[in-house]
């Protein structure tokens, strides 16, 4: 990004190759719509290109890209006025199928898919700052420091937000387990 900010237009290819896959994953999780996710990736990278003169030499480009992406995602969400984040449990489950081992038996696979769907529904219910903190760390692979920079809060606040999400998910899954155990006894 440094070379691009100094006027080397060819360096933008490297910026794209570094960031586009990460941003695409981030937007796919939010929109569940590949065309919209790609448009948001394009818009994010173009915003970075347009603002290249503001890039601080030697700074980390990833938090900057995710912060712009997050802002555009929120903007897009407000414009559509539709709750598209993890719109359906089915869609989320489809998206997470890749994480469930195909070697598992059909029963394991069904349970894992159901759990993923339940997690998605619970995630969608959580406040956006908490959900984003969790996703940036857990799913986008950012460090706590990078996530803190994206969100504009302290690292402690990011850890706290992520912890609240873990707790929320754990309590939901525990409740499901108890319900399942009761069902099997009955």
């Amino acid at each position, binding site marked *: 990004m440094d070379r691009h900010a100094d006027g080397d237009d060819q360096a933008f*290819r490297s910026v*794209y190759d570094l960031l586009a896959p990460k941003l695409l994953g981030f937007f796919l999780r939010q929109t569940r719509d*590949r065309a919209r996710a790609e448009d948001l990736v*394009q818009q994010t990278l173009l915003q970075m290109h347009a*603002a290249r*003169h503001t890039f*601080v030499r030697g700074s980390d480009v990833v*938090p900057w890209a995710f912060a712009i992406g997050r802002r555009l995602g929120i903007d897009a969400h407000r414009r559509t006025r539709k709750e598209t984040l993890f719109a359906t449990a089915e869609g989320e489950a489809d998206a997470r199928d890749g994480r469930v081992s195909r070697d598992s038996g059909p029963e394991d696979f069904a349970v894992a898919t159901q759990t993923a769907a339940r997690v998605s529904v619970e995630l969608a219910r959580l406040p956006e700052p908490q959900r984003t903190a969790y996703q940036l760390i857990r799913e986008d692979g950012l460090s706590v420091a990078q996530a803190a920079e994206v969100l504009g809060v302290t690292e402690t606040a990011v850890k706290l937000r992520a912890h609240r999400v873990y707790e929320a998910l754990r309590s939901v899954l525990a409740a499901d387990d108890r319900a399942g155990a009761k069902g099997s006894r009955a």
Partner: protein
Amino acid sequence: MNDPIDLRARVLAAAASTPAPTRAEGRRRALALASTSVVVAVGLFESIGGLAHSSGRPLHLTFAIAAGWAASSALLTWVALGRGRSTLGRRPGVLAAAALLAPAAMFVWLHAFYGTFAEPFSRFGWRCLGYTIAMSVLPLGSFLALRRGTEPRSPAALGAAVGATCASWAGLLVDLWCPLNNAPHLLVGHVLPLVVVMLAGAAAGARVLAPRLRPPPSRPA
């Protein structure tokens, strides 16, 4: 599913056809606008009477007040505009706190000199209010134009902090011009404009500094 290569080609083509200033160009523009802002503000200061207008106050007190306020303005500038090693700059909470503290700090500092000399006349403070706002408009507008669409986290907080910074430097010139330090005058003539420009910066920043979605990019059929 769309081809990732297609997306890459689309993004690179769109970037190639979108003019974007480089760092050097950005620096040149910033320098030109900052210089123009200073020249306009000093020109206005001189046109309304300059330092001679505050001759009713001992010169050493005028300079002492100005020195303290300049140091405070420099600190505010460092907080608002300094970004350290991060393109994203300071946390929104820090920017908002700096913007909110500035008017209070200004009042405390200026009022500390009340009673150290006999004020030469009495004024309500409308002229100080007007001059401070007038001197702040150009630097604030310049900043908003230069950094348009580049603050993704909290554009309102950055706008407020920069608004307070611009009004703070303008307030320094106005204070060199104005020999009054009584509380009612300070509140109306020196603190209120800082609050007004800070709020204007927050409102304008929220609209101008945030990256916005552009019309949907063209997609191949």
